C-alpha cells in the first residue's frame, strides 16, 4: 500500500518538469533545429547546398573566421600567460580565496560599460584603435574567466605532493613543471575554453575597440542575419556550434569531477 502511494507521488512530482521540458523543446531545441534546416534552404525556401558554397567558397568569410580564430588564440594565450601566475601566487597566499574575488568582480559589470570605458581612455590617450586595442579589450574582458578556474584547481592541489617532490630532491623549477603544472591541467583546459569560445564569437567588442575596422565571427553572424542571409548565417552558427561542442567535450573529459566550477560564481 505505501509502496503504491509512493510510486504515485513520484509520478505526480515528475509532472512538474513537463512545462519546462516543453519550454526547452520549443525555445531551445527547435530554434537550433531551425538553424540546421536553414543552412540547407535558399531565400525562397528551396533545398540547396549553395549556402555552403557561399561560405566555404568565399575568401572573405573564411578570412573573418581565420582572423577570429587568430584573435581567439592570441587572447587565450595572453590570458593564460597573465592569469596563471596570478592564480598560482594567490593559491599560495592564505587569504587568496578572498583576494581572488577582487579579480572576478569586474566581470559583473556589463561588458559594454567596461569596453566603452577603455575605448574612451584609449581615445583620450591618443592610442590608435586597431588590433592592439581589440586584443587589450578581449584580454581585459576575459581574464577573470581564466583566473577563476585556474585558482580553483591550483588551490585544490594537495600540498603534500609538492612537499614530496621537494623531499625527493626536486628543485623549484622541477617541482613546478612535474607536479604543479600537470595537476592543474584541468584548470588550464577549462580556462582555455571559457576564454576561447566567447572570444571567437564576441559581438560588438572588436567593432567598438577598432572603430569598425576589425570584424570578428560573432559580428559576421549577426550581420548575415541582419541582411536577411539566413542560409549563410546558419552555416556560420553551425560552425560556431561545432566549436562549442568540441570544447565542451574536451572539458567534460578532463573535468569530470570539478564540473561545478564552470560559471557557478555564487
Amino acid at each position: 500500500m505505501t509502496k503504491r502511494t509512493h510510486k504515485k507521488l513520484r509520478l505526480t512530482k515528475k509532472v512538474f518538469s513537463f512545462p519546462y521540458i516543453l519550454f526547452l523543446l520549443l525555445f531551445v531545441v527547435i530554434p537550433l533545429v531551425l538553424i540546421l534546416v536553414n543552412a540547407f534552404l535558399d531565400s525562397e525556401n528551396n533545398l540547396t547546398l549553395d549556402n555552403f558554397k557561399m561560405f566555404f567558397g568565399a575568401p572573405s568569410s573564411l578570412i573573418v573566421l581565420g582572423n577570429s580564430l587568430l584573435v581567439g588564440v592570441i587572447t587565450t594565450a595572453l590570458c593564460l600567460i597573465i592569469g596563471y601566475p596570478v592564480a598560482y601566487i594567490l593559491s599560495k597566499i592564505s587569504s587568496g580565496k578572498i583576494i581572488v574575488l577582487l579579480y572576478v568582480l569586474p566581470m559583473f559589470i556589463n561588458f559594454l560599460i567596461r569596453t566603452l570605458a577603455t575605448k574612451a581612455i584609449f581615445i583620450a590617450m591618443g592610442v590608435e584603435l586597431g588590433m592592439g586595442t581589440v586584443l587589450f579589450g578581449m584580454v581585459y574582458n576575459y581574464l577573470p574567466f581564466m583566473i577563476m578556474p585556474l585558482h580553483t584547481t591550483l588551490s585544490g592541489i594537495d600540498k603534500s605532493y609538492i612537499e614530496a617532490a621537494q623531499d625527493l630532491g626536486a628543485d623549484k623549477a622541477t617541482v613546478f613543471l612535474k607536479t604543479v603544472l600537470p595537476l592543474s591541467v584541468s584548470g588550464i583546459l577549462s580556462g582555455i575554453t571559457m576564454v576561447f569560445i566567447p572570444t571567437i564569437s564576441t559581438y560588438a567588442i572588436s567593432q567598438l575597440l577598432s572603430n569598425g575596422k576589425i570584424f570578428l565571427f560573432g559580428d559576421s553572424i549577426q550581420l548575415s542575419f541582419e541582411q536577411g542571409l539566413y542560409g549563410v548565417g546558419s552555416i556560420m552558427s553551425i560552425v560556431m556550434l561545432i566549436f562549442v561542442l568540441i570544447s565542451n567535450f574536451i572539458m567534460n573529459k578532463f573535468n569530470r569531477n570539478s564540473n561545478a566550477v564552470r560559471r557557478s560564481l555564487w
Partner: protein
Amino acid sequence: MVKSTEKKKPAEQVKSFFEKFYLFIILAILYAPILLLVIYSFSNSSNFNFDQGFNFKAYVAIFTSDKSPELWTAIGNTLLIASVSSVIATVMGTFASIGIFNLGKRARRLVENVNQFPIINSEIVMAVSLMVFFVTFAFPEGYLRLIIAHIAFCTPYVVLSVLPKLESMDPNIYEAALDLGANPFKALTKVMIPIISPGIVSGFVMAFVMSMDDFIITQINKGAATGINTLSTYIYSDARVQGLEPFWYAIFSIILVVVLAALLTINLVKIQKQKQKDREAKVQ
C-alpha cells in the same frame, strides 16, 4: 613543522615582493578604467579633463538631458523585463527541478543536458536561433519575444542552483511530513520548498542579474521597428555613434557602485557564515 626552519632568506623576500607587485599591477590594470570612469564622472567632460572643475553636472544631466526620457524608458524596460522573466524563470525552474529530480535516470540526464545547452552555447548563436524561430512562427515583435528569450537563458541557472539543494535534502523529511498526515501539496509548500529556498533565492538573483546584464540576446531579438531599448542596447546605440556623453559616466559610476556594493555584501555575508560554520564545526 616546517615553519621553524622557514626563516625567510633575502632571495625569498625579493621573490615574495615581486609576487605581490605582480598581483597589484594586474589588479590596477583591471580597475584602472573603472576608477577613471568614476573620477571623471565629476568632471562633466567626455575626454578625461577637469577643465570645468569638480562638479555634479553629469549627474544632474541624467534627469535634465534631452536624452533623459529615452534613458529612463530604457531603464524601465530593463527592470520590467528582468523582473517578469526572472520571476517566471524562478517559478518554472523550481518546479522543473523538483520534476527533474524525480525523473528516471536516463530522462533526467537528457533533460539536464538540454538544460545545460543555453549555458554552454555561444550567446550569439542562441540569439540568432531564437530570432529565426520567432520570425518563422511570426511571434509578435517586442516584449513577448524579449521576455521569452530572457526566460530561456535564465531558467537553466535557476535549475542549476535548485537541483543541488534537492540532492542534499534528506528525502525522509518529505516522507515524514506525509506520514504525519500532510497532503502532498502541503508537504511540498510547507516542508520541501522552505528547505530548498536558499537555492531558489540564489537562482532568482542570478536570473535577475543575468537578465539585466544581457546585451547580445536583447539586441538581436528586440526588433528594429519596435524601438524598444533596454539600458544596454540603448548604451550601444547611443555610444557607438558619438562616443560617451558625460552623463553616461555618471550612470556607469552609479551602476558600478551599486553592483560592487551588492557583490561585496553578498560575499562578506557568505564568508562570515562560512567562518561561523567552521567555528561551530571546531567546537563540536
